[in-house]
């Protein structure tokens, strides 16, 4: 597999949200608006790239039976570092996302990539995989957030284009499931055509 494909496969073929259906908890919870979805995606991507790099570098020295706890400690460390740094230098972003940052630790995408990719591949490949999957996650979350924001609040990236409220249910939990389900349907339809 070429280096370039390592990145693109994360966006379409192995899209974490629409194909692998990983990390549903932060996906459903944070995508109330496009900005929130994008910020969550970027924060996850940051952690994913770093954890992939470190885990692929140290995997050979970790006994098999304690690999999961070791990975979790590494991931949790990066998440906490991110939290400190955001709190200190971008307090405004931290305010909107603060609640969700600790969720990255238990995001199965991060541990999933450590388990399925980083511990078997080279540091460079793992970093690229992190970028690819991270980009895929960010794009899907932004898209889902955008759809929910447009239907639910009548705005896009915070800019209102209709008066009033829109269909409020889409900002709430049930709308998250509905919007996600329809996006998966559309995504499948588009990608399966390509394959034929």
């Amino acid at each position, binding site marked *: 597999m070429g280096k370039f494909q390592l990145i693109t496969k994360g966006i379409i073929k192995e899209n974490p949200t629409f194909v692998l259906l990983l990390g549903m908890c932060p996906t459903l919870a944070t995508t*109330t608006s496009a900005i929130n979805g994008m910020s969550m995606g970027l924060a996850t991507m940051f952690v994913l790239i770093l954890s992939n790099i470190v885990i692929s570098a*140290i*995997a*050979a*020295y*970790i*006994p*098999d*039976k*304690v690999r999961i*706890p*070791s990975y979790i*400690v*590494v991931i*949790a*460390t990066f998440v*906490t*570092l991110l939290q*400190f*740094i955001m*709190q*200190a*230098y971008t*307090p405004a972003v931290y305010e909107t996302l603060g*609640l969700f940052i600790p969720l990255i630790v238990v995001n199965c995408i991060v541990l999933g990539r450590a388990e399925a990719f980083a511990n078997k591949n080279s540091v460079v490949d793992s970093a690229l995989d992190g970028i690819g999957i991270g980009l895929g996650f960010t794009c899907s979350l932004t898209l889902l957030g955008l759809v929910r924001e447009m239907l*639910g*609040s009548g705005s896009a990236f915070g800019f209102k284009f209709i008066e009033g*409220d829109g269909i*409020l249910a889409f*900002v*709430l939990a049930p709308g998250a499931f509905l919007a996600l389900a329809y996006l998966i349907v559309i995504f499948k339809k588009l990608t399966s055509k390509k394959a034929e």
Partner: protein
Amino acid sequence: MAVQSSFKNMSLCLLVICLVCSALLAGVYALTADPIANAAKAKNEAAIKEVLPETAVTIEEEKSITVDGQTYTYNRAFDDLGNTVGCAINVSALGFGGPIAIKVGFDVNGVIWNTKVLSQAETPGLGAKCVEAAFSEQFKGFNPVEKKLAVKKDGGDVDAITASTITSRAYAWGLAVAAKVFGEIVGTPMPLDAWTGATAN
């Protein structure tokens, strides 16, 4: 995997990973502790200035006062001549999704100058609208002695957010608490008719 899963290897591996991670965290914590404290302080001061008249230039150190067994923190503010301009009081009210922390600014006459939500976890699109001007604007110049700090449904003078009575009620209740605290701070309890209604909440 090259390393065997023996007890010694596993313990050693976890020990090293945890040591390195703790050291890293401690280091970054030490580096960011000051900026984090500064950011929190700047945010608090900005919020205080927002809820008080523009003439407030000097903000006093935070003080606390106990009213009805609850402790509240507040900051007094002075203008450039040293006259008291007003007082910003922190209150917390239980909304629909958890506590709503509100900063309430009073001028010297006990009239609410402005209010600001510091943190809230209300439902997006419903109760979360309490941070928007459309709702909070009505409290500018609200005199808690002349008007009643309760939603209209409860016989007060506060316009509730549509479909978010619990949030609106909590907000009005929080402001009524702040008014009572203000009375205690200045030493002359406010003649609050509204207060009796609010305690029933």
